[in-house]
C-alpha cells in the first residue's frame, strides 16, 4: 500500500521535475544527487578518505558555516522585535523574553555568536596544524583570516545592541582603541601631523577614527544606529560574499587537503 503510494508519487511529473534521479542507491544516482543539487554541489562527488575523518577536520569549518546560517535566521527574526534607538532598544530586548512566545531567539543568537567565534578559532587552528594553508591554498587562508576578523566584528557590533550596561561599556572599551590609532585617532601617536596648510588640524575629536565608528564622541544613539546597520547589513553581506569565495576556492584549490 505505502509502497504503491511512494511509487505513484515518484512517478509524477512534479516529482520528476524536482528530482532528476532516483533514490541514491547506486554509484550513478549518488553522483547525480550531488551534481543536481545547488547546495550539495558545493561538494565534489567523491572525496579523499583522509578528509572526512572527524579527527582530521573536527567539522569546525562546517560548524562555523552552520552557525553563520543560524545567526542569519535568528537575526532576521530578531529584527522583527527590535528598534535600534535608545528609547526602545533595551525594553525591546526585555520584551523578547517577556512577551514573545518561545522567547529563545536572543539566547540562540547570542550563544550562537559566541560558539561561532570558538568554532572559527578552532577551524583556524586545525588548518594551521594540518599545514592546509600551504600551497596551493595560500590565498584561501587569507580569505579565511579576513572572515575571522569579520566574525569578530559581527560579534562586536552585535554586543552593543541590547543597550545595557554590559553593552555600552564593552563597546566603549573597544572603541576607545580607535581614539589611539596612530595618525588617525585623537589620542594616538602623531595625530597632529595630518594638517591642512595653515596649521588646521585634520584629526580632531569630531573627525578621528573613533568618531567615524561611533558617529559621536561617545557611545550614544548614533553609535547604536551605526552598529545596527553594520551588524545587520554591511558586515553580513561582506561575510556572505567572502564565504562564497572561500568555498569556491576550496574546490578550485584541490578540495580538502590531505597527505600528498
Amino acid at each position, binding site marked *: 500500500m505505502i509502497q504503491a503510494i511512494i511509487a505513484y508519487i515518484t512517478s509524477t511529473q512534479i516529482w520528476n521535475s524536482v528530482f532528476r534521479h532516483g533514490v541514491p542507491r547506486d*554509484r550513478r544516482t549518488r553522483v547525480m544527487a550531488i551534481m543536481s543539487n545547488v547546495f550539495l554541489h558545493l561538494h565534489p562527488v567523491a572525496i579523499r*578518505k*583522509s578528509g572526512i575523518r572527524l579527527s582530521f577536520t*573536527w567539522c569546525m569549518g562546517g560548524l562555523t558555516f552552520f552557525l553563520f546560517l543560524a545567526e542569519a535566521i535568528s537575526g532576521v527574526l530578531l529584527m522583527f522585535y527590535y528598534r535600534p534607538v535608545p528609547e526602545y532598544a533595551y525594553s525591546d530586548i526585555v520584551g523578547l523574553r517577556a512577551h514573545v512566545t518561545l522567547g529563545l531567539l536572543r539566547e540562540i543568537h547570542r550563544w550562537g555568536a559566541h*560558539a561561532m567565534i570558538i568554532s572559527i578559532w578552532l577551524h583556524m587552528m586545525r588548518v594551521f596544524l594540518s599545514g592546509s594553508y600551504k600551497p596551493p591554498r595560500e590565498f584561501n587562508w587569507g580569505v579565511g583570516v579576513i572572515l575571522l576578523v569579520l566574525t569578530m566584528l559581527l560579534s562586536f557590533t552585535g554586543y552593543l545592541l541590547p543597550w545595557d550596561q554590559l553593552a555600552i561599556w564593552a563597546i566603549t572599551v573597544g572603541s576607545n582603541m580607535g581614539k*589611539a590609532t596612530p595618525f588617525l585617532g585623537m589620542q594616538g601617536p602623531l595625530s597632529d601631523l595630518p594638517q591642512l596648510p595653515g596649521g588646521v588640524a585634520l584629526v580632531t575629536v569630531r573627525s578621528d577614527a573613533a568618531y567615524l565608528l561611533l558617529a559621536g564622541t561617545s557611545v550614544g544613539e548614533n553609535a547604536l544606529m551605526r552598529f545596527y546597520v553594520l551588524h545587520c547589513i554591511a558586515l553580513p553581506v561582506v561575510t556572505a560574499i567572502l564565504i562564497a569565495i572561500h568555498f569556491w576556492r576550496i574546490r578550485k584549490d584541490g578540495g580538502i587537503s590531505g597527505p600528498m
Partner: protein
Amino acid sequence: MIDSLIMLASGAPGKPLFSSPAIDSFKDVVNFWSQPQYSLPLFTILFVLMLVFYRKWSRPIPAGLILVGFSAIYFGSMAIDSNYSLILTKADNVPITIMLFGVGICLWTAFREAATNDKAIEEGKPIPYSDRDDKVLVWPDLVYIELICLVLASAALLFWSVGLPAPLEAPANPAGPPNPSKAPWYFLGLQEMLVYFDPWMAGVILPGMIVSGLIAMPYIDTNPKGNGYYTFKERPFAITTWLFGFIILWVVLIVFGTFLRGPNWNFFGPYEYWDALIQVPLTNINLSDYFWLYLFKSELPTNPFVREGIGIVLSGAWVLAFLTVPWWPLMVDNIPGIGKVSGFARKLFGQMGTIRFLILAFHLAIMAMMPLKMVLRWLFTLKYFIYLPEFNMNL
C-alpha cells in the same frame, strides 16, 4: 565603590560547599602562584613540555587523565570557593569554558595524529591515508556526517539557549561605568595587554600585526613539508611559534583578562574576592627615568628625543637584532632542536629570500616584545621603553 558596598551589604558571594583550613591554605597557594609574573612563565614551561613530550601525553590514557584531572580542579573549585564559582558561572564567561575545553581536545587529537604520522615518517612508511586515490562518494559518506553534525550542533545550541539565559544588565547608563569595564571576552587578550602597552600598541598595532602576520604566513612559510597532515617533527619552528602566539599570548591572556582581573583592573587570584577598595600603588618607572635619574643622578634633559634616546636606541636595536640574526657574529650554541640560532636563521634566510625573511623577523620582533615587556615589568617595574607624551607615543 558603591557597587562594592552593595555587594558587601548583600553578603555576596555566599559560603562555599566545603571549607577547611587545609582548603584555605590550598587556595592561598593557588592565588599566589596565579599572579601573572609566576603563572605566565609556568604556563610557558607547560607549553614547552607539551611540545617536547607530545608523543607521550597524546596517548589516550595520559590524555584522559589530564582531562579528568583538569576538569576536577576546574569544576571542583566551584565547591570550595564561591568567588570562583561566581566568576565561572557568569553567563558571558561560559563560552570561555567551552573554548578552553575545545582548544584542549582539538590540540589533543592534532598531536595524537602528529605522533602517528611522525612515527610513520621516521620508519620510512607512508603516512596513513596518503593514497590520493583512496576516495569515497560524498553521498552518503560526507553528507551523512554533515547531517549528524548539523543535528547535534542544533541540539547543543538549543540546549545551551534553554539552559542559560542571555545576560542582560541594567539599562545603559553613560554616566555610570561598571568597575571593571571589560570588552567582549574574545578581545580580552588585547585588553590584558593594556596593562603593559598603551592603547595604540595593544589596541591597534598588535591586532593589526596579528592579522597581517596571519595573512602573510603561507607566503613566509616556505617549508614544503607537513602539507595536509598533522606533524610536529617536520615543522617544529612554525608550530611552536604559532601555538605560542595562540595558546599563551591569546587564550591564556583571555583567561587572565576575564577570570583574574577585577575592579580597577587589579589582579585577583581565582579564589579571591573582587574587592574594589583594594589600592595598588603605581610604582612603574620609565626607562628614561632609570637612565637619567637613577644611573646618572642628573635631571631629565628637556629635549624629548635626547631624554628618550636610550629607549629609542634599545627598541630599535631589538627590532634590528631580529632582522639581522643571519649575520650575527655571536653563535648561540646548541639550543635543543634548533642548534645555533644564527645558523638556523641563515638557513631560513637562504630558503626564504630577503623580503620573506624581513617580514617574518619584523613580526617575530614585535611578537617577542610582548613577553619581553611583561618580564621587564615583573622584574624591574618598567613602565615604558620610550616615554614621549609630547607625541602621545609611549612604548
